């Protein structure tokens, strides 16, 4: 998804009244003008981990900042915005303040003053010095306000947009009260395994206090950070801003520098979509191609007329009694009758999607529910990738997704680029049968892994030829490849960002190949409270409406780019939104213009979201498919 550049920054009018140097200096904490402090800061930032960042406590004049907070409380209207990457209450754009009329300006004089000093020559010089960023623009100002309340969050991103050099966040939670770590809302910084591949776990966290600033150098592919979810009913107000590369006419302006920087960033972005970097995404987007002899079965099934059916086949289902018995192990009986299947078939053909409630039969559903609930309530759940044990793995990189999964491949745990390369060298196909055996080494492990074993058995069932025959029959599409992943999205941790699907490059020349994938999600979330979407966890399919250049897809992630789909409930871009539920299968024929994501699960959700994600490349057996008519 293309994330638009923000409406900021704004080029300031040179006629703006500048504050006198002494006045500017007096509105900051005097320690920052002390050469010793500056040297110390410079040194700390140069040596900081995971990348160059720093923080200063009590940055500006206390009285000024308190007045700013009051003005914001009284005068600024915040609107709740929610996309795949954040939930925030956001104001308009601060850079436009100087463009307001006097009447409006008089409403926010302190905020205006704050912006003046933050972009003053003196402070910019201080900042450029301690961060080693090079000169910073005073003309191109770029600020906005965020108001995080309970449940608000901003997922991992690197802040790279346009000519930004430094990002800063000035915090304004309630003065006179300490903001505690367990309130959430911390700024967390992520180290990277390699460029553009941030780790799943952050390595630094800043708990924001009133009048504290945090800042870092914008480093494409490295400066990954997030804002952890606010967990309490408190107001975490902050002013976020950026310093840009000097503009024409400013000190430090280098002709062509900004253009070169931007084009370098774009090429970095292009890389992120490239095959090389897709190699470092787990679970991998590729689907396993099905054996030819298997595909033949589906072809036969789809091309045989009812009149030609052999006698042992049950009419319309085009399956033998034995095959139906096999399916009945898992699937509810109502979907295994002629009428049941016909009804599903017509709905799917009409809409290109279908939701099947109570898909698994009662005995299997009851058993799975019991086992999953047991895991939720009784077993320790690892929240950091470093603690995740087989058979579970952590989906990486964290600016794309984070969740636990089982994909039927050997266990992998990535600490270095070498680990990832080794994994590529010895890449294996999914093998749930083998995986199940590893879980049943003895009675003890069988008992410990009861839920996982049941889920792996379910994955085996979905991989079976008979199940694919059922799917072929239901959708009238012939599967060519497949992928099955068992997923668990933990509260306060997990999500996927919106992505398009990739069609198989190898299969696309197959006759009848459909430019879409068939995707199924069997949601197995055993708790309630998801219906309203307030705690996240819903799966959303949306139309990517912009004419997007592929290299920018899902990369320019930032706060201001508003892919807002929830402010308008009738929003045309939402094609399908389903809350986490128990035992419902959603089938979607998804073309490349469709984006899909699972919204970040709030800490207050009653449990993890559990599901199985199924994907197939498909072809149509309809001879008329390519005809003009």
């Amino acid at each position, binding site marked *: 998804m293309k994330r638009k550049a923000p409406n900021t920054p704004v080029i300031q009018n040179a006629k703006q009244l500048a504050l006198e140097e002494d006045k500017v200096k007096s509105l900051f904490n005097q320690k920052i003008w002390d050469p010793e402090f500056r040297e110390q800061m410079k040194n700390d930032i140069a040596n900081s981990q995971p990348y160059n960042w720093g923080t200063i406590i009590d940055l500006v004049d206390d009285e000024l900042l308190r007045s700013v907070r009051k003005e914001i409380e009284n005068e600024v209207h915040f609107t709740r915005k929610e996309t795949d990457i954040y939930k925030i209450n956001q104001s308009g754009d601060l850079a436009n303040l100087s463009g307001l009329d006097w009447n409006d300006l008089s409403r926010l004089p302190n905020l205006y003053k704050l912006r003046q000093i933050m972009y003053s020559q003196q402070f910019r010089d201080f900042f450029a010095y301690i961060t080693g960023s090079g000169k910073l623009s005073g003309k191109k100002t770029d600020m906005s306000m965020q108001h995080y309340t309970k449940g608000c969050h901003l997922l991992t991103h690197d802040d790279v947009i346009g000519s930004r050099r430094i990002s800063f966040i000035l915090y304004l939670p*309630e003065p006179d*009260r300490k903001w*505690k*770590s*367990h309130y959430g809302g911390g700024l967390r910084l992520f180290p990277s395994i390699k460029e553009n591949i941030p780790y799943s776990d952050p390595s630094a966290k800043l708990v924001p206090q009133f009048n504290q600033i945090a800042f870092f150098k914008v480093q494409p592919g490295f400066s990954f950070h997030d804002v952890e979810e606010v967990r*309490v*009913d*408190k*107001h975490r107000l902050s002013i976020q801003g950026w310093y840009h590369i000097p503009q024409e006419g400013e000190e430090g302006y280098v002709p062509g520098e900004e253009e070169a920087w931007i084009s370098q960033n774009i090429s970095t972005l292009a890389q992120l979509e490239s095959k090389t970097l897709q190699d470092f995404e787990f679970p991998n987007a590729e689907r396993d191609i099905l054996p030819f002899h298997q595909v033949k079965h589906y072809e036969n099934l789809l091309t045989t007329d009812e009149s030609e059916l052999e006698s042992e086949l049950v009419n319309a289902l085009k399956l033998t009694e034995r095959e139906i018995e096999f399916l009945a192990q898992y699937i509810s009986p109502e979907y295994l009758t002629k009428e049941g299947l016909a009804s599903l078939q017509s709905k799917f*053909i*009409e*809409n*290109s*999607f279908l939701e099947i409630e109570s898909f698994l039969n009662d005995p299997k559903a009851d058993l799975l529910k019991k086992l999953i*609930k047991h895991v*939720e*309530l*009784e*077993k*320790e*759940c690892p*929240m950091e990738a470093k603690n995740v044990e087989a058979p579970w793995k952590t989906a990486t990189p964290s600016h794309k997704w984070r969740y636990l999964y089982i994909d039927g491949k050997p266990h992998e745990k990535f600490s270095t680029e070498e680990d990832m390369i080794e994994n590529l060298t010895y890449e294996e196909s999914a093998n749930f049968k083998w995986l199940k055996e590893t879980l049943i080494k003895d009675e003890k492990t069988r008992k410990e892994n009861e839920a996982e074993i049941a889920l792996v058995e379910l994955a085996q069932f979905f991989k079976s030829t008979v199940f694919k025959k059922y799917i072929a029959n239901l959708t*009238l*599409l012939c599967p060519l490849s497949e992928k099955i992943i068992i997923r668990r999205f*933990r*509260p*306060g*941790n997990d999500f996927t960002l919106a992505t398009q699907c990739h069609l198989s490059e190898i299969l696309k020349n197959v006759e009848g190949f*459909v*430019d*879409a994938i068939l995707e199924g999600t069997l949601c197995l979330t055993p*708790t309630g409270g998801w*219906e*309203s979407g307030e705690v996240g966890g819903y799966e959303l*399919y949306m*139309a*990517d409406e912009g004419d997007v250049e592929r290299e920018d897809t899902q990369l320019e992630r930032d706060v201001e780019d508003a892919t807002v789909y929830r402010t308008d409930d009738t929003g*045309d871009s939402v*094609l*399908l939104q389903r809350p986490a539920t128990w035992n419902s299968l959603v089938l*979607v*024929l*998804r*073309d*490349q*213009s*469709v984006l899909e994501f699972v919204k970040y699960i709030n*800490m207050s959700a*009653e449990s*993890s979201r559990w599901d199985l994600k199924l994907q197939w490349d498909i072809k*149509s057996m*309809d001879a*008329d*498919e390519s*005809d003009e*008519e």
Partner: protein
Amino acid sequence: MAKRALGLGQKNREKKRKVESGSEGGSRNATPTVTNQIQIELGEGVDPDNELAQLHGLWLNYFKSERDDEYMLNGIVHECDRLIRQAQEDEEMAKQLNDRFHAIYALALSELTIFKAAEEEGKERKLVSEFFGNALDRLSYGQAAHPDSNLLKLVFAKILLQRIPLEYIFKLEVDSEEKLDLHQKLEDAKKNFVIVDSDLELSYEVLNMLNDLLDIVENFGHEDDIEEGLDSDDEDGIDLVELKTTHPLYQIQQQVPENYQWLRSSFDNLLESIKEKDSELFRSVARSIGELLLKEAEEPASTYLSIIYGNEDDDEDVEPTDESKEAQKKAQELTKKALEYLEKAQNEEDPKTWVQVAEAQIDLGNLLDYQSSEQESAYKKAEDILRKANKATKGKFQFILDNLLEKE
């Protein structure tokens, strides 16, 4: 057939194009979706063709829902209107309009006030007032026809308790002096409150409304502090705002403790009336009682703790005084009793309910003698519960556990 292979996104674009060019006419509405049809579940043995049974089913549907569907409420009101018109021409129908019918009509009108309040700007809530007025009118018709109906009495209490905050307190300031008879309205509500065995959930809801009302009165004037977000771990509660004797809330504020007593004993009666001890309703009522007991324990607990541990600068042991001993005893009694109820309120699948027990154990531990074995046992119980709850909730209560372990 080619239509079939269109993906969801392509299909959407095609539909849009057709709608824009008008070639598909009104086909956008041609496919009914599940969401715009209401399914009503009727109880066993209920005649599905009976219009009153359908109306009751529809009301229950709303009552048990998230209550965010104004259309559904309007539908109920329209249906009530229709049945009344029918009853004017049809004697058989007139006979069928029982107290439940009138109760549903009045309840639906009173529930609509919530949506009207959200629509109205400013301090005058004319529509809210009008709808409450209509609801009470409807109720008085019903009561005239069914003077002995307990259900209608309960609904009367509900409307009064809902109206006090939504229409009156909403517009009050700390210096208001308007004469609103709020105290009398509250007393009328209490007088009419009755537990209706067939409507235990509604009975519980009415008591909860009183609970909320008392909370609003206690916090009156502190709305800004609350807006900022109070510290969950802040040990200082909020003091009552001092109101003039002429303030409409003065009398209610003076009688907050008595009202809480009345509320607790009503919750107790309700708990007795619930036959299914394993129901969510039973647990909820038990939880409400436990919470009220803990609230009552706050004052003596704070007296005891401030005498014994109040002076942080002084390392020397403080000898208990008569006052501290009495406060300790009272607070302990109330907390122990609260624990009994909170234990009954536990749901094995809901860790929040375990944590309530753990927090009450910590409260009890704080009230027991310093480093006594009883104190350690209470803290240990709390610790075990918190560990279990953290496991189940991915660490949601870790900070409570950390605080506890610091204490030990």
